[in-house]
């Protein structure tokens, strides 16, 4: 996977950032409320996509279970919101408990009364769960397709668990957040949504820098080494288990943050976040955007979701065909994703094919070697 080859002028970079920040600040007044809310949600999805890119694009672990951590983050946020705005309901517990005749708050809800605990729980709990699952799987050198299947199966387990436990977390109905209060304001109100949008935008940028920091330097090199040749990394004296567990729990933490932001902006968290298709979609955002390019993950998540909502509004039945076709097309024709294609030799090859640009001439032996390298 190619690392960005362009070096822009500092002034261009600076003006790009200024433009971006201006757009973020101005977005609420430029976009209608509905679209702004959608954009905010999709931006929050791009954080989970960053996590997927870290584990799949850089480390070569295809997880089909990121929905677990996404939903866990969402549930943490929703539990706090439900509990803080339950003072007028019987027994001072969230309203839905009365439906199932529960009078005492289940024990694991207790800590979520504290905002500080919730703030940390949103990302630490998913990261811990991810670390545990990851450690148990990686310790046995389960990898490749086996890893993907196990993550998918654990996704189903979590889905079944959350879906079945009405008395603990309202089961299949999920937890609503849009009518709850946060700091005296209604979460679903327009002004709160605007603030959430800004928070999301800032966190996306922060997560991007964080991910860039993770893949830079030795740690990032080891991740790429694990992706390309894990036995060699092991023979060199590194223990891949530790690195894989760390990066998997980082991705889990990012997914948790993303889930919490998505929950407050969509107004509900439910076991639907843990369905199989949703978690695979996360992978495809990264695949289309360009795996191994962090920016590609963000752009992929935002653009594909926007396209999805636009297409589904116009032609509801055709989105499945388009999405399925996109999977096949990207995997067979564009394995590096759009951004990877642009950063690599894609545009030049295209121009060459139309005779607009001359082929680069190198030593024949070099080209043969390159070809061999591609086949590996």
């Amino acid at each position, binding site marked *: 996977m190619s690392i960005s080859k362009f070096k822009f002028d500092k002034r261009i970079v600076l003006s790009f950032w200024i433009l971006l920040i201006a757009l973020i600040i101005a977005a609420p007044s430029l976009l209608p409320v509905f679209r702004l809310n959608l954009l905010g949600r999709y931006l929050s999805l791009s954080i989970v996509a960053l996590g997927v890119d870290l584990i799949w694009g850089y480390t070569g672990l295809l997880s089909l279970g990121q929905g677990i951590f996404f939903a866990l983050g969402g549930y943490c946020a929703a539990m706090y919101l439900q509990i803080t705005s339950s003072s007028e309901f019987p027994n001072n517990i969230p309203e839905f408990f009365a439906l199932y005749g529960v009078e005492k708050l289940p024990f694991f809800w207790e800590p979520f009364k504290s905002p500080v605990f919730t703030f940390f729980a949103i990302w630490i709990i998913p990261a811990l769960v991810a670390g545990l699952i990851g450690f148990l799987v990686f*310790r046995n050198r389960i990898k490749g397709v086996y890893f*993907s299947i196990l993550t998918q199966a654990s996704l189903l*387990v979590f889905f079944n668990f959350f879906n079945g436990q009405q008395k603990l977390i309202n089961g299949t109905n999920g937890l609503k957040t849009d009518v709850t209060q946060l700091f005296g304001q209604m979460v679903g109100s327009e002004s709160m949504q605007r603030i959430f949008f800004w928070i999301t935008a800032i966190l996306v940028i922060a997560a991007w820098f964080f991910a860039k920091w993770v893949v830079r330097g030795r740690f990032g090199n080891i991740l790429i080494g694990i992706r390309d040749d894990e036995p060699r990394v092991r023979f060199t004296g590194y223990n891949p288990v530790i690195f894989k567990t760390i990066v998997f729990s980082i991705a889990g933490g990012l997914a948790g943050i993303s889930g919490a932001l998505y929950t407050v902006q969509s107004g509900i968290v439910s076991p639907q976040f843990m369905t199989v298709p949703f978690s695979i979609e996360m992978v495809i955002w990264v695949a289309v955007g360009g795996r191994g390019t962090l920016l590609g993950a963000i752009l992929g998540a935002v653009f594909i979701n926007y396209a999805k909502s636009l297409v589904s509004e116009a032609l509801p*039945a055709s989105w499945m065909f388009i999405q399925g*076709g*996109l999977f*096949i097309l990207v995997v067979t024709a564009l394995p590096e994703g759009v951004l990877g294609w642009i950063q690599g030799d894609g545009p030049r090859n295209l121009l060459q094919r139309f005779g607009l640009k001359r082929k680069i001439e190198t030593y024949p032996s070099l080209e043969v070697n390159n070809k061999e390298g591609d086949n590996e």
Partner: protein
Amino acid sequence: MELLLDSLFNGVAIGSVLLVAALGLAIVFGLMGVINLAHGELMMLGAYTTYVTQLIFKLPILKPFYNSYIIVSIFLAFIVSGVVGILLEKTIIRKLYGSPLETLLATWGVSLILQQFVRSVPLAYGTGLVISLIIGLFLPTTFPPKIKESINFKYFKFSSWILAALSGVLTGSVISSTVSKLSRASARNVDVTAPSWMRGQVEILGTAFPKTRLMIIVITLISVIAITLFLNQSAWGMRIRAVTQNRQMSDCLGISTEKVDIITFGIGSGLAGVAGVAVSLLGSVGPNVGGNYIVGCFMVVVLGGVGNLLGTVLASFGIGIMTDLIGAGRLLSIWPDMPLPLSNTINFFATTSMARVMIFALIVIFLQFKPTGLFPQKGRMVEN
């Protein structure tokens, strides 16, 4: 005793659906290291084939043979799913050799397309499309070798595809004009009704067993025996085993790995179709029917180990029996006066969804001790 027998039978019944579904997946996985995420949708195609066959057998001409439609549909389902699988192999999977994760994603795309296809295309025209695929893929292989080797073979191929397309359109329109239920697309679930000789129950050793479940066990038994014989006795079976063990060496020794891949993928997909017939007997058939079984099949493959049919058989019956034991809370009825905390735990897991949670946990614990499944492949490679 009776309870135990009942429990065992239920477990075997659950396990045999899993087994026939996982059999094809296991063979393909053993050969190519590829998990075919569209396997569930190939099952769904098999189930829909049963439905279409049933409706066609209700036509006046075929009415006398109505009772045998389920037997016919087993073969038809095998062919339909097999052909779709072959098409999948020829167009997509072949391009993705050596990158199983990419194949995983591409087959997921295929499964989305197949699901939406069943929803938005009338089944009559779907049948027509499948028939033209069958003719187009197989007609060129029946030509005499003289034509096959001639330089104009591509024209013959092309014209056979035209013929195929025409016959497909013809079949589609004939079916849609005669069977009104198939002429419109619908996303609703459909029901397959078992023929009269399969309804009701049989009493064995004082316990009543539903006949449909027995039928499923019989289908599974026949599939397993047939596939074992094929793999162990036939020439192609030997080639498949050879390629499974060492692809490069087999290639060097003159086995056409390309043909082996097509045949294996076709058989694996065909078995998914047979599993679809079994599934259609259990409940209503919808576009999402495959998704309910697919993860169970994966677990069977992971638990059973690669390239070993015995592992697949043991794993699916093991999972089936455990599902029944946990999901129906049977331990409680076998041992009624167990201590309270234990019985509370068992009650907590005594639903279908919680049983899945428990079984998965057990599988993960099992994999801690045997990471490569019940019967791992022996070898001295660093990988696997």
